[in-house]
């Protein structure tokens, strides 16, 4: 059985303090406005929250969550259906052809199709994490031991029962891990899609503060983006622990 990870909140606090300490050290040694101290960034963060940083965080969170949800709602069922050989015969070649392509270059096409509003940003995030979730889900479904299916069939199961009681729960840990990883990917894509043609979101805030050479505000936006990623990651992890308790025994 896997051992999960260290549970103690204290170890997280120590790690955070260590990182902040290193940051302090670096900013003192560099002694340049381009790397402000954590404290001044903290003040800038508070000032940002008092202004409209919270709004931008929400906009960014909305885009990421929507993008991942959109991707997952297609990728998970499709990946699970790959359990069936006939389905996999069609889907696997498509995956293998399209997965390694850098989807971010689809941006012009997506803007052409969905305009320059929120939708095209969400769609680009969705397309990129769609493949991550699909590939992982498919692999999990393909590697499922057929004995579980036989075992369920021997209890008088229908096809629906097989998906509900075997294929989905057996693949769920892998699916949630893929979603957890896709949080990181989608935040990176988020920065890219928010760095142009919008005046909302953390990516915009970063570009804006950068252009004004307002370094504390720049770092405050970067920290906000990091916290957003961390927060979403922890949520998925909590869901994983709740739904896949059997993995963490």
């Amino acid at each position, binding site marked *: 059985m896997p051992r999960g990870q260290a549970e103690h909140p204290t170890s997280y606090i120590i790690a955070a303090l260590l990182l902040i300490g290193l940051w302090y050290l670096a900013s003192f040694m560099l002694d340049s406005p381009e790397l402000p101290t954590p404290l001044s960034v903290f003040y800038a963060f508070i000032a940002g929250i008092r202004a409209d940083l919270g709004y931008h965080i929400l906009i960014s969170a909305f885009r990421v969550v929507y993008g991942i949800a959109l991707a997952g709602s297609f990728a998970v069922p499709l990946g699970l259906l790959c359990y069936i050989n006939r389905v996999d015969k069609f889907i696997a070649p498509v995956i293998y052809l399209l997965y390694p392509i850098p989807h971010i270059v689809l941006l012009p096409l997506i803007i052409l199709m969905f305009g320059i509003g929120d939708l095209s940003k969400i769609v680009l995030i969705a397309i990129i994490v769609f493949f991550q979730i699909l590939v992982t889900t498919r692999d999990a479904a393909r590697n499922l031991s057929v004995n*579980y299916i036989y075992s*369920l069939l021997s*209890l*008088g*199961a*229908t096809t629906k029962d097989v998906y509900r*009681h075997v294929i989905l729960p057996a693949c769920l840990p892998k699916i949630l891990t893929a979603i957890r990883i896709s949080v990181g990917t989608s935040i990176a894509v988020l920065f890219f899609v928010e760095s142009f043609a919008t005046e909302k979101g953390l990516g915009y805030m970063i570009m804006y503060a950068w252009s004004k050479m307002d370094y504390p505000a720049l770092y405050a936006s970067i920290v906000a983006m990091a916290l957003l990623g961390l927060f979403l990651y922890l949520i998925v992890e909590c869901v994983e622990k709740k739904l*896949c308790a059997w993995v963490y025994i």
Partner: protein
Amino acid sequence: MIEAKNLSMVYPDGTEALRDVNFVIQDGASCSIIGPSGCGKTTLLFILAGILKPTEGVVQLGVQPREVALILQNYGLFPWKTIYENIDLGLQMRGIPRSERKRIVLSLLDRLGLRSFANHYPDQLSGGMQQRVGFARALALKPRILLMDEPLSSLDALTREALQNFLLRLWKDNGMTMVLVTHSIEEAVFLGKEIIVLSPRPGHVVNIIENLNAGDANYRTKEAFFSKCREVRQNIPPAI
């Protein structure tokens, strides 16, 4: 009555697992099936249980498919379901009301000494306990035919004997038909009134040995037991 007529099985990849298997098992009988590793025993049970279709031949069971229960090699429990949920699952899929299911599951848990593990997951239990859960799950469905695929083979000797005794009592108390696949000659002789001996792959019936003394809980210590074991051993074709 279980009747296997001219059963042959060739897997899609060309592996011939069974060739022209024929036998009859009477209602309420206990029958052991023994044969070398890879001779097609699991395949045969899957065919009897209706999970696989033979490429040739037919199986006649004389009972409804839902009255047949199968216990798989390596227990066949679902790691993502608790002990309670594992036992409950078959009942749930039959649409039995929740309160009725609860009564059945709890009484089985009590009977098999697993009550305090209801909310554990299979991986938290010892092999012997997992196997008892496998039995409980099958028994919950009140089968008239119980098919078992080497149910005790990965257990230590003591647990194994205890569960053999359990199976014997089960058979005597419930009057169901029991078919037990095993690779242990002693187990086949202790539990099977009839012993079907299969050849190496492609499996076919080389002999059906009568074993009328089976059913006696003290059979293991008797001379008749040892001579029967010897007889079975002489009938088993050498594996390559």
